[in-house]
């Protein structure tokens, strides 16, 4: 060293006293750390808000207000009613009389007319007549009818509709709410679990109360069958080729580039592909779970290929060398040794891919699975694949875009069911991973 000025390095202060600059720097350190923590808390806060708003708005969809009226129809009344021109009207009058009786028994006096009952409960006469036509032996014995209250009444009881927000219409009058209050006080209106929501089909645009998600669950189910049946074998085959056999050449590079790009293509573009190729070009039926399944398969394939390749890669080369060493062919090595060892990882990746496909909505919009009113269950397996149906996310979207706010509750409820499915699939994937994960 030649520089003379550096012979004596300046001595520092004592270590045990923290100088002002260090204090300042430590304060900056604390602030920075706080920003990070805040960011995480904000993220978690959003998660909580989302969960709360789903549960708060969605859970009411699982209950439904029902009016229980005990009703005895004598043979004479039956004959008289059947003899009239307006048969259902006669039954309706009988029902109203029975309801009045029940209210009087409980010492309540409320004025109401037939129109109010219709607004509250829909066409009661028809329901009652149908019941007695089908069960003539029940004439003369007391029968308890469990009638679903209209969605607005239901909403009033759940607090979604308030007295202030009600505008007199043919659906609900403010005065009806007095009757509802009375019925509730009398214990005639009760709240029960809404099975129809889970098993039922979509209703028309003006009947939110009757809408159920069951049929679209079946639609989703058939779609997932298609996705599973196609994407698993194709995905695994493609991964095996790329990971184990593919030579380093332009063709392999082309496939690799395509897969990584397809993984990031917006899902709506797959919808355009489905519309143009499967529906316009191949004339496959619109709104069919088969087409939905095909589109979702193409969309899910990159995900499955990427995760399958990762699991194949995690099988150590020593296994391959061992098998090749005893004279197995390359193909035998892969199918007898590598693939079974990678299976749990492949399965996990497939389930996660399926879960992703199950929640996907945008491509389904374009192949006509939205706005379609799925009224009935498919008749068989074949019709399950090719008859028009909806799917869970598409059904939710359909409800969300209807004018009647009664459908919003159903949409949130549908989300709860969708999330239950997704949660179950993800938990299965996690359990599989925990149970079979092997570290080399």
């Amino acid at each position: 060293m030649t520089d003379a000025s550096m012979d004596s390095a300046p001595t520092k202060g004592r270590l045990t006293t923290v100088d002002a600059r260090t204090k300042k720097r430590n304060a900056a350190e604390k602030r920075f750390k706080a920003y990070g923590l805040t960011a995480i808390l904000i993220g978690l806060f959003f998660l909580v808000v989302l969960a709360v708003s789903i549960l708060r708005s969605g859970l009411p969809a699982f209950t439904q207000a029902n009016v229980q009226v005990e009703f005895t129809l004598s043979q004479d009344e039956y004959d008289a009613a059947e003899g009239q021109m307006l048969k259902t009207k006669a039954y309706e009058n009988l029902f109203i009389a029975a309801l009045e009786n029940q209210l009087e028994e409980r010492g309540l006096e409320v004025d109401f007319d037939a129109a109010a009952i219709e607004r509250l409960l829909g066409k009661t006469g028809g329901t009652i007549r149908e019941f007695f036509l089908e069960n003539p032996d029940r004439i003369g014995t007391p029968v308890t009818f469990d009638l679903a209250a209209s969605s607005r009444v239901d909403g009033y009881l759940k607090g979604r509709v308030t007295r202030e927000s009600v505008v007199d219409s043919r659906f609900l009058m403010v005065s009806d709410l007095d009757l509802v209050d009375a019925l509730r006080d009398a214990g005639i209106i009760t709240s029960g679990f809404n099975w129809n929501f889970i098993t039922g089909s979509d209703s028309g645009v003006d009947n939110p109360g009757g809408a159920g998600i069951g049929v679209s669950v079946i639609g989703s189910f058939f779609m997932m069958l298609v996705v599973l049946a196609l994407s698993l074998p194709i995905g695994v085959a493609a991964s095996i080729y790329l990971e184990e056999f593919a030579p380093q050449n332009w063709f392999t590079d082309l496939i690799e580039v395509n897969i990584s790009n397809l993984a990031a293509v917006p899902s709506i573009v797959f919808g355009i592909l489905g519309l143009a190729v499967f529906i316009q070009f191949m004339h496959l039926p619109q709104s069919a779970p088969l087409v939905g399944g095909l589109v979702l398969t193409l969309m899910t394939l990159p995900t499955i290929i990427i995760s399958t390749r990762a699991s194949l890669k995690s099988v150590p080369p020593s296994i391959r060398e061992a098998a090749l060493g005893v004279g197995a062919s390359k193909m035998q090595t892969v199918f007898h040794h590598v693939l079974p060892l990678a299976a749990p990882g492949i399965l996990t990746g497939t389930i996660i891919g399926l879960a992703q496909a199950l929640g996907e909505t945008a491509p389904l919009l374009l192949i006509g699975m939205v706005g379609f009113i799925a009224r009935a269950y498919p008749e068989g397996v074949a019709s399950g694949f090719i008859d028009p149906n909806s799917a869970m996310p598409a059904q939710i979207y359909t409800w969300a875009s209807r004018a009647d706010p009664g459908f919003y509750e159903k949409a949130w409820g549908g989300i709860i069911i969708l999330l239950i499915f997704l949660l179950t699939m993800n938990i299965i994937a996690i359990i599989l991973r925990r149970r079979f994960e092997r570290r080399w």
Partner: protein
Amino acid sequence: MYDATYDTTQETAVTDVKIKAKDVQVYYADNHAIKDVSVEIEDKTVTAFIGPSGCGKSTFLRCINRMNDTIDICRVEGDILIDGDDIYDKRVDPVQLRAKVGMVFQKPNPFPKSIYDNIAYGPRIHGMARNKAELDEIVERALRRGAIWDEVKDRLQAPGTGLSGGQQQRLCIARAVATEPEVLLMDEPCSALDPIATAQVEELIDELRQNYAVVIVTHSMQQAARVSQKTAFFHLGHLVEYDDTSKIFTNPEDSRTESYITGRIG
């Protein structure tokens, strides 16, 4: 157990002791990595830590500037005093400590910045320069002390990662020197370098001795013999022997040291 030069009666008499360690224990989770190490390291001296892999020499080195704080499972017991201050005292800020005890690592690790910014990084965070001119001066001085000034003076804005391995390591030494430390810790600084670069760095270490207490961990006994005045031999977490380098290499007291020197363990 051979107890280095530690002797309570001499504590005040030895004036040029820079670092004094007493009964240091280090644990990685349940693994007891350093056992009862006591040692006194002198100022303006190169002290070499030698020993077989995994003997704890690097771990002990990292205790001296509390680099082990960045490892969650690591726990240090015992006292390490620098100029009489216990560095594990609650009042000591590791940031301030590390400004005083610089470190050079096994693999050259220049930041992905320009050569200038690599050197200026330390002075900047410690607020050592009042203006650009002063900073320039500090950078130049550090690069000169790192014996790399002549090679890089024309391309101070080029990225530090573009230098050769030996240049990178000298850049890292210059970077450590730029914060004006009093102690310089070097963790196998030549293990990633070729022989020519090693020779340059060793020459540099010898020059640095004039200003600092240098502690160097090395795998190479020849290197320890070449650059150090004092040598400590570690084995299985124990400090086996600590003495003048010439004594360790010619007339070791402990049979394990002799075995190591002669190549029977290691």
